[in-house]
């Protein structure tokens, strides 16, 4: 019984996520901060040794991008030209996610260590 409810809930959640994803893709003007940390397609960028890895990532509009900090130093994700919401300082193992919006090239950097830079290429 409990399993049955769980499965149903899981199906419901999945449906909701798909709807959400479609809505986000349709709205598509800006990169949105994805606080739900959901998204079917997750593109991970690992921060290690003061570098974004991979430094350039190509995603489709509507996909989720997640950074995870593996350093013992705090890092931030800040868009050059403020094209998407910046993260707060991420401590070790903390994550930050956004959903890719309109197609284009988005440069970002760590405002604590500005030598750290990365690029997101969003395709249709």
């Amino acid at each position, binding site marked *: 019984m409990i399993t049955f409810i769980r499965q149903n809930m899981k199906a419901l959640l999945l449906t909701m996520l798909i709807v959400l994803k479609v809505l986000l893709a349709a709205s598509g003007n800006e990169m949105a901060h994805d606080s739900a940390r959901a998204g079917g397609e997750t593109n991970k960028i690992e921060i290690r040794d003061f570098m974004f890895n991979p430094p350039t990532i190509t995603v489709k509009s509507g996909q989720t991008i997640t950074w995870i900090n593996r350093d*013992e130093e705090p890092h931030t994700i800040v868009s050059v030209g403020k094209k998407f919401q910046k993260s707060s*300082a991420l*401590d070790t193992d903390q994550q930050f996610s956004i959903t890719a919006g309109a197609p284009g090239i988005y440069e970002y950097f760590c405002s604590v260590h500005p*030598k750290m830079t990365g690029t997101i290429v969003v395709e249709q």
Partner: protein
Amino acid sequence: MNDHNHILHDHEHDGIDRRGFLKCMAWAGTGVLWTVTGGVLVSRTLAQIAKLDPSSLAATDLSFLQISDSHIGFSKEANKDVTETFKIALDRINALPAPPSFLIHTGDITQLSKPEEFDTFDQLAKGCRTKDIFFVPGEHDVLNDGGKIYRDRYLKSVEAKGSGWYSFNKNGLHFIGLVNVLNLEAGGLGQLGDDQLEWLQADLKDLPSETPVVVFAHIPLWTVYPQWGWGTSDSERALSYLKRFGSVTVLNGHIHQVLQKVEGNITFHTAMSTAFPQPAPGAAASPGPLKVPAEKLRSMLGLTSVHYKQGNSSLAVIDSNLSQPKI
């Protein structure tokens, strides 16, 4: 007297020979005491000072002490108890035969700019016999709010401008605290910005060239290692305003190790951290905290040296290198 234009070890005024320097302090809880005698700045590590005859200090015009990078809130492997090592630093300051007139903290008070981290620092600092502390922020102190908490707490005793820069005079010296950790640009280094540079130019405009100037900021104002961001992109402009002065001492933190450089009349010096060491420039994959065996942590070997040149007069240099677990 020493020959001019030579880098000399100062055996004469500190009562400590080279062996004494080599036995100097543990890295954890280090600080550098700066003394001014006859207009000449000399630095000594706390361990050296503890061995000095108090009367030799009484003869100086002014003494102050630099601490840096306390990183309160850091609890990773490189040092799981930065509070303890900061306390050791304060204990050593309190144990000095003659207390310094004031402290300068060259930034990274906290690890993550959290109010509770600032609270801990403030609470600990109350235990210091020397009450006056002049601050500049590190990037760790301005992480999420552009430095608001920092400014609200640490600039009460100064007339700060802009994002928190200021100057003051003590015993004939002119001190300047600069902010180079805000509004950083992608791919860049530390930055002072036009507003601060214009203020600096105006601040120095009417100051006689013979006034000794001490500049302090978190990120080095000379290019230590740009690959790791260890430098300030527009520091050259700041230095151009300082070139006419006979004696300029630039004190920085950020890199958790002692490095120095002399350029004309300007001496650049970086201080050790009270929290954890960082690798030498380029000696590791990244500038992250350097992990050393636990038993070595407090005896991490360090280097402290300072040059000071006043016109064509003698150049005093004090080296301190390495340390013993117990002083």
